[in-house]
């Protein structure tokens, strides 16, 4: 289960928007190869936490450490380059490019050839290598055969799979999934579950925001529950769902658990 070393550590993380404390004194750790679910009612601070980790927002207090280095205050591209890659709640494909090129954009930080080398006609070997890898990733998420397809022609579910392949192309050590199950059909959900397990099996730490508990609870090894920006419970899914504070937070929405 969660056997690896702690890769991503969040300590006393706090974010205020004006008078509203969106995240308040949040602590949790994410281990290598672990699938950790981040749940809570709407407005609990899940997305804010994601944006803090990904560098989209600056924090008011606390610390985020990745592989024992502080990363709070780094720009989003700097955090991605270190190996923490996020997906977005709504698919954000690069519209002017085919599927393969979208995945290659995800591999951006893996390229080493400088501009002068490219201008001189170099970098071809690296380009071919990354292309092969991108094709493998497209195959892994189940989009094989669609390499040259216009992203505009993909279904919603295929677009979600593309987002995942694109995120994997950056060789992440941590992946942040923002509600990946939203809008997917039951068969797509099943496929997504397999992919997420496959990602964790590669040793990548997975942090998952999810509303769909039927999808998340069988998948996650551990769950952190937020309410009003604070952590109210943490533990294996079967314990957390019976936790009194969690039941209270989800009161009237018990079916969701």
């Amino acid at each position: 289960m969660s056997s690896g070393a702690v890769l991503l550590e969040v300590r006393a993380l706090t974010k205020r928007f004006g008078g509203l404390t969106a995240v308040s004194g949040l602590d949790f750790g994410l281990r290598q190869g672990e699938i950790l679910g981040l749940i809570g009612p709407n407005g609990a601070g899940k997305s804010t936490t994601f944006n803090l980790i990904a560098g989209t927002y600056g924090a008011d207090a606390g610390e985020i450490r990745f592989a024992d280095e502080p990363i709070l205050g780094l720009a989003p591209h700097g955090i991605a380059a270190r190996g923490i890659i996020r997906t977005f709640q709504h698919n954000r494909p690069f519209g002017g490019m085919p599927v393969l090129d979208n995945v290659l954009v995800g591999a951006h930080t893996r390229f080493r050839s400088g501009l002068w080398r490219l201008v001189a006609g170099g970098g071809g070997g690296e380009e071919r290598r990354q292309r092969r890898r991108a094709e493998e990733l497209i195959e892994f998420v189940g989009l094989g055969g669609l390499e040259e397809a216009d992203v505009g022609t993909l279904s919603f579910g295929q677009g979600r799979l593309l987002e995942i392949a694109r995120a994997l192309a950056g060789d992440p050590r941590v992946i942040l999934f923002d509600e990946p199950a939203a809008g997917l059909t039951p068969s797509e959900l099943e496929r997504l579950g397999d992919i997420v397990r496959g990602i964790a099996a590669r040793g990548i730490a997975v942090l998952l925001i999810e509303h769909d508990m039927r999808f998340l609870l069988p998948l996650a090894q551990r769950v952190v529950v937020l309410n009003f920006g604070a952590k109210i419970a943490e533990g294996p899914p079967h314990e957390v769902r019976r936790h009194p504070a969690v039941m209270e937070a989800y009161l009237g929405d018990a079916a969701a658990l």
Partner: protein
Amino acid sequence: MSWARWLAAFAVLAVLPFFLGNYYNDVYRKLLLWITLALGYNFLFGISGQVAFSHFAFYGVGAYSIVILLFQFSLPLPLAVLAGIALCIIVALAVAIPSARLEGFYLALATLALAQLFIVVLNEGGSVTGGTGGLTNYRLPDVLGMRISGPWYTVVIAALLVGTYAVLWRLDHSWFGRACRAVRDNPEAAAAMGINVARTKVIAFTLTSALAGVAGMVYAFVDNTVNPPIFGLENAFLILFMVIVGGAGRHAGAIVGAVLLFLLPFVLSPVIGHHHVLVFGVLVVAAILLQPRGLIGIYDELRRRLA
């Protein structure tokens, strides 16, 4: 593309002027220069998504600086070329760095201001820029004891075009070109992929501006005169129109647009005189409203239907 294909393209373009008379040589040279400019502007506007109006001004910076550095500062040709490129890079960075973090609208304004300021500097530059009359009565220094003129100078322009195209094509078909397109399509998602958005924009702007400057240096010895009206806003918009009508984001589109809009006046002038600008206006509006992918988009569509 391989070196062989670029060389073949160069050979074709370089042989042609030897079969043309003086008049058509002049038309041909200017056509090649417009294609070069449109290719660079397409990378900036179409691929990188930056709405800038300074491309033609950098063409002017290159043209004026090579003449001033050669004949007023008496620099040797290679040094003058390097200094001219350095000047373009410095000016480009000075505009791009503050604009990169702002929304695209501010880059448009900053580059429009730069283009206007450049004309003011040219007009008020006294003996350095030659004022409203510009600089004239100079000719290209001999290179290795040889005088390059007539169709041989057209060969230089063909090399400029193919060289510019090769640089842009290679960058476009690399991680850098994909990063530029990603930044254009969705900056936030691009940043999430590890792309430094501001840096990518600044590099694309500076690179294409420097290429425009180099083209300007070559242009300076086409007519052997540089003067303010050439580098005015009218031509800045003409490159924009070329790229839009041809198809923004596609090299072939830039080429088609440049060829069409450059040659159209030659065809239309005998019929409607200077009213060809009206036709341009209609073409641009039609392209934006009916065919945002430009003429090359129509070609793609036809090919898909026939396939």
